[in-house]
């Protein structure tokens, strides 16, 4: 009969925190920080993860690199000249191109620069298919065509062009002891960052001067989701006679490393959030113990007008729950905001974790209610007579 309705119970419990706003806000701080950390970290790592996945998708999750391996006696085994063409015939392969490094070949502005001042630029011979296979884009000029690939022409990486002082196609540069005409300058490539400091030469032209120049590697691009399948047949396809002497690698190893770093960061931050929540809980216990002491008169009055000990206990546990709720909501909003700001700052799509925010709010209420148990039990045990004498 004397049971309070849910509404009466909640309004009664909300009265305490509402009548001491600044103290209530302060006691919510710890929980708010804990939940904000939790929501922010989960959102930030999810944002990073999403971007990584997008990056890999855009540049490299579907790229394989085939390189020469070693034979049974550990002697180097070059890739057959037919390998690129054979690889292109694999169904899911969308593009493949050989790259040959001209080791020791100098790349200079002109023939007067001493050959000891190479500037770290490299010269590589490439097949014209490379641009399409690896999504290379030109900053200026043109890529190799059937004609220019047979001539002493070069396409420069962006940094190489800077270094050589080349801004417009048509200039000449001194590579491998002969003049080459610059026909184009590349944009920086995420997929093949090493091309940035390279001078690319047409394979057909280079092979006329160096007929024995071996394939350094073959860049292979496949349809999304077929990396594993293609990987399994690549060695046989590239070198049917000696499939074991073929090295195949994928960039996903890099992604795995990145993910491991992220998860270390994440568990560290989750530990931090847990500590903040604990501190928040202690703060709520503190606030509530003080509130119970201060409100002995109110508690006694409630007992006098018929509140049961149990109802007093419920009231104070709920009050603490409200403090938790306030902190949780503030923290969740703050955490989500941080994720959005982070995403904007990193120029990527933020991945706010709404589930974590929801769970965080629930967790805060729970933390509050648990923090309220001890003060609430004390409130319920107070003697009404002594409470009425106080004040």
């Amino acid at each position, binding site marked *: 009969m004397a049971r309070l309705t849910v509404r009466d119970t909640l309004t009664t419990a909300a009265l305490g925190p509402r009548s001491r706003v600044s103290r209530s806000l302060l006691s919510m701080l710890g929980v708010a920080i804990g939940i904000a950390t939790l929501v922010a970290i989960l959102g930030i790592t999810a944002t990073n993860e999403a971007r990584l996945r997008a990056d890999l998708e855009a540049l490299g999750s579907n790229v394989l690199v085939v390189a020469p391996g070693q034979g049974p006696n550990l002697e180097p085994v070059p890739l057959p000249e037919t390998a690129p063409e054979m690889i292109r015939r694999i169904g899911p392969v969308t593009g493949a191109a050989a790259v040959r490094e001209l080791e020791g070949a100098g790349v200079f502005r002109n023939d007067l620069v001493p050959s000891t001042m190479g500037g770290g630029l490299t010269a590589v011979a490439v097949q014209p298919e490379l641009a399409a296979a690896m999504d290379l884009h030109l900053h200026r000029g043109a890529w190799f065509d059937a004609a220019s690939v047979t001539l002493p022409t070069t396409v420069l990486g962006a940094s190489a062009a800077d270094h050589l002082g080349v801004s417009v196609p048509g200039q000449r540069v001194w590579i491998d002891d002969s003049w080459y005409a610059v026909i184009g300058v590349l944009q920086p490539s995420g997929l093949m960052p090493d091309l940035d400091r390279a001078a690319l030469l047409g394979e057909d032209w280079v092979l006329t001067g160096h007929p024995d120049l071996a394939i350094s590697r073959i860049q292979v691009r496949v349809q999304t989701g077929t990396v594993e399948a293609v990987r399994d047949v690549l060695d046989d396809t590239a070198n049917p006679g000696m499939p074991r002497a073929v090295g195949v690698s994928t960039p996903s190893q890099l992604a795995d490393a990145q993910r491991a770093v992220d998860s270390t960061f994440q568990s560290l931050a989750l530990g931090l959030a847990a500590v903040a929540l604990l501190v928040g809980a202690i703060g709520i216990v503190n606030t509530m113990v003080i509130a119970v002491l201060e409100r002995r008169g109110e508690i006694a*009055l409630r007992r006098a007008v*018929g509140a049961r000990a*149990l109802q007093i206990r419920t009231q104070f546990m709920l009050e603490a729950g409200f403090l938790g709720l306030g902190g949780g909501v503030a923290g969740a909003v703050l955490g989500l905001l941080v994720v959005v700001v982070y995403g904007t700052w990193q120029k990527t799509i933020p991945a706010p974790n709404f589930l974590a925010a929801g769970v965080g709010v629930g967790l805060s209420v729970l933390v509050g209610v648990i923090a309220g148990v001890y003060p609430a039990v004390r409130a319920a045990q107070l003697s009404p*007579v002594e409470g009425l004498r106080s004040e």
Partner: protein
Amino acid sequence: MTHTAVAPAVELRGVSKTYATGSGDLTVLRDVDLAIAPGEHAAIVGPSGSGKSTMLSILGTLDAPSAGEVLVGGRPTAAMSDGERSDVRSRSLGFVFQQFHLLSHADAVANVELGMLYTGLGRAERRRRAVDALTRVGLGERLDHRPTQLSGGEQQRVAIARAIAHEPAVVLADEPTGALDQATGTAIIDLLDGLADVAVVVITHDLVIADRFARQVRIRDGRIEADLTAGEATAAGSEV
């Protein structure tokens, strides 16, 4: 007990109260018998420290006697659970204290409503009765005033409204004029003594106030010294 057809509103039977203190046991009430009939108005008067407040707390089931029985509406309370005793208070008793005990963050109506929160009455009914009770104590125009916006006498009126709004059987008032000046105190006593259809027990150390009531229970050192009707009290004089 068989003499009256109707049970007393509240009754003490052989009640004693002993506190354990650092310097041994302190007996504050000794074998007190007291019955307050329904609708009866009585003053309990005695010097400070004579055990009046203790008696009122025990009458109001806020404290348990060390020995003896407390009955509310004829029902013994000793064997009741905390919940049952709380329900008895919420339905049958109303309290008025010297320090008012109003919630400072709530306005007059909310304070009076609080007195009915644990009665099981619905919100709307509580509101209606609160406004009604405040009107009865002359504060119909001050419903939304907070305690800090009210004088001491007005605050005590709010407390009285809170004590009567649920139509209890007994109003128990402990030194209700103790924090008020004399004129205001007199008005509060007028208000309490003017309450109809409810037993009123007013505790005071002031014989002048006690003289206003039809019955005077004089208490000294935890014992009932005299239990007088108005006429007898005047004859017995004001020596307490």
